[in-house]
C-alpha cells in the first residue's frame, strides 16, 4: 500500500526526528506533526541547565527554524490529539479537527511525576519539563536565596548546580541513599556527592518531603516527613516522569509500562508505530526484555529507525543506549545499561573529578560511566556496540586504557 500520509502525535525530540528523517529518506507524502505546546519544536536537555543560565538563547533551543517546516512541507499543528479511530485511521484533535493517516506515530513522551504533597500548588514550586516551565523559573532562580530540590536525579542535580552557581543555599532531599542511584554506580554517586557539596549543595538522603510551607500563597519552606524544616523561596522537583499513555490506552493498544512495540518499533496495530519516552521496546542490550528509556539518544535513533522502515528499509532496532548530564563543571556520560552489574573496575581518580566506572555483568562489560573522561565514553560506545567483550581482568591490568584496547580490538 502506498504511504501518502504520516501523522505524528508529539513534537518533542522523537516526533520531530521522525518528520525530519522521513524527508531525509526521500519520503514525499504528507507529514503532519502535532504538538500541544506553543512555538516550534525544541530540545529539552538545556532547559534545566544552559538555557536556565542564559548560556543559550531560545533560538538555539530550536531543532530547526520556522522556514524549515515550510520548505520541507511538514505541517506543524498546535493542538492536542484526543482520540485515535483505528478502524477509520483517523486522529481527532481537541479543536474538533480530524486528520487521516496511512501511518500514525505516537511520540507523546512523558510528563513530570507530580509532587503530591500539601502546599505543592503554591507559587514558587516548579517541575522542569517544558520551555514555559524554564521561562517562568529563570527569573526566580536569579533572586532565590534558599532553594530546595526534591529528588537527586539528573534534572534535580542539574538544577541544584545552577542554583548553587547563582549563589543560593541549596538543599537536596532524596528518598534514596545517594545521588542518581537509579542510574549510576556507587563510585560515581560518591564523586557527584562530593562535587556538589564542594559547590555548597547540602544533601539530605533518606528524606522525603512531607509538605510545603507557604505564606500568602507563596512557598516559604518545606518540612520533611521526619519533621525537619528547611527555608525555601524556591522548590524544584525532579522525581521521575510518567509516560503519556492515555491516547494509546483509549485506542486499545497493548501497553506494558509504555506502549508496547516490537523490535521494529511497531505497536500491536500494524498502522501505528511508537518511540521515545512513551514506548516500551524489546532491547537487545537488556536481554530482549521490554524497556522504556527516557533519553535523547533513544528518541533520535528510534525516530530514524521508524522513518527508515516507513520508506521500505525495515531493520530491528539495536542501537546502544547512551546518556549524558552536565552538572556544574562535570560532564557525566554513560554508555550501555548497567542493570544487573555485578562487578566494577574504576579508571582515573575521583579527587580530580575524572573517573570512569566500567560495569561488568558475568565478566562481560555492559556499561561505562565516565565523568570528565569523554575519550573513555567514545571508546566505550564503540566497544559496547560489537564483540569482543572486554573482561574485568583485562580492564584491571596496570596502565589499561579503554581507547587503546578499543583500537587493538577492532575487526
Amino acid at each position: 500500500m502506498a504511504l501518502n500520509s504520516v501523522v505524528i502525535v508529539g513534537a518533542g525530540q522523537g516526533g520531530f526526528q521522525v518528520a525530519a528523517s522521513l524527508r531525509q529518506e526521500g519520503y514525499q507524502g504528507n507529514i503532519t506533526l502535532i504538538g500541544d505546546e506553543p512555538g516550534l519544536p525544541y530540545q529539552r536537555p538545556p532547559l534545566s541547565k544552559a538555557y536556565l543560565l542564559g548560556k543559550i538563547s531560545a533560538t538555539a533551543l530550536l531543532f530547526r527554524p520556522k522556514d524549515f517546516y515550510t520548505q520541507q512541507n511538514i505541517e506543524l499543528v498546535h493542538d492536542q490529539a484526543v482520540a485515535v479511530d483505528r478502524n477509520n485511521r483517523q486522529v481527532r484533535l481537541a479543536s474538533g479537527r480530524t486528520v487521516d493517516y496511512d501511518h500514525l506515530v505516537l511520540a507523546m513522551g512523558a510528563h513530570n511525576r507530580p509532587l503530591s504533597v500539601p502546599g505543592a500548588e503554591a507559587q514558587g514550586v516548579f517541575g522542569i519539563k517544558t520551555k514555559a516551565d524554564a521561562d517562568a523559573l529563570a527569573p526566580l532562580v536569579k533572586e532565590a536565596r534558599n532553594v530546595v530540590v526534591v529528588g537527586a536525579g539528573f534534572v534535580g542535580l542539574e538544577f541544584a548546580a545552577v542554583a548553587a552557581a547563582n549563589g543560593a543555599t541549596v538543599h537536596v532531599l532524596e528518598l534514596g541513599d545517594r545521588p542518581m542511584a537509579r542510574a549510576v554506580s556507587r563510585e560515581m554517586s560518591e564523586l557527584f556527592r562530593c562535587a556538589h557539596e564542594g559547590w555548597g549543595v547540602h544533601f539530605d538522603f533518606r528524606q522525603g518531603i512531607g509538605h510545603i510551607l507557604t505564606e500568602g500563597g507563596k512557598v516559604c519552606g518545606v518540612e520533611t516527613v521526619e519533621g525537619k524544616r528547611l527555608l525555601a523561596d524556591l522548590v524544584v522537583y525532579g522525581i521521575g516522569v510518567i509516560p503519556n499513555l492515555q491516547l494509546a490506552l483509549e485506542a486499545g493498544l497493548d501497553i506494558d509500562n509504555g506502549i508496547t512495540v516490537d523490535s521494529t518499533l511497531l505497536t500491536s496495530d500494524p498502522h501505528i508505530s511508537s518511540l521515545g519516552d512513551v514506548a516500551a521496546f524489546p532491547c537487545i542490550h537488556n536481554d530482549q526484555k521490554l524497556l522504556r528509556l527516557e533519553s535523547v539518544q533513544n528518541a533520535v535513533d528510534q525516530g530514524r529507525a521508524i522513518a527508515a522502515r516507513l520508506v521500505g528499509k525495515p531493520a530491528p532496532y539495536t542501537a546502544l543506549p547512551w546518556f549524558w548530564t552536565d552538572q556544574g563543571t562535570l560532564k557525566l556520560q554513560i554508555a550501555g545499561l548497567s542493570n544487573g552489574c555485578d562487578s566494577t573496575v574504576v579508571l582515573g581518580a575521583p579527587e580530580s573529578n575524572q573517573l570512569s566506572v566500567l560495569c561488568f555483568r558475568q565478566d562481560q562489560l555492559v556499561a561505562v560511566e565516565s565523568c570528565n573522561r569523554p575519550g573513555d565514553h567514545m571508546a566505550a560506545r564503540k566497544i559496547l556496540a560489537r564483540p569482543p567483550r572486554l573482561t574485568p581482568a583485562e580492564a584491571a591490568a596496570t596502565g589499561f586504557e579503554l581507547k587503546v584496547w578499543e583500537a587493538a580490538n577492532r575487526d
Partner: protein
Amino acid sequence: MPTLTFIEHSGTTHQVNGEVGQSVMQAATFAMLPGIQGDCGGACSCATCHAYVDEAWMERFPPAEGTEVDMLDNVTERRANSRLSCQLVIAEGMDGLLIHLPASQY
C-alpha cells in the same frame, strides 16, 4: 548573512546560509545537510557533528579544548583539522567558510 560551503566526502558541494553567533553544526542541520547529525543538540556530548575545517580557515577559530579534544580522540578518521562543528561559532567575516565532511560520523 555568511554563506558556508560544505563539501561531502563524495565531493558533493552544498552552499548553506549561516548566522553570526550560530554554530557550524546548527547551520548544517538547519539546512538538512547529510552527514552532520548533531544528536546532542550542541552539548559536546555525542561527536556526531565531526567535520574538517579547511586549512585556510583553521586559525579563524579558537583551538579545541578539554571535552572536544577528548571526544575527537575517538572519531573515525581524525585529522589535524578535525573539529566538532557544534563548538565552532560563526563570526563576522566568515563568509565563504569552507568545511569538509568525513565519510561517516561512526
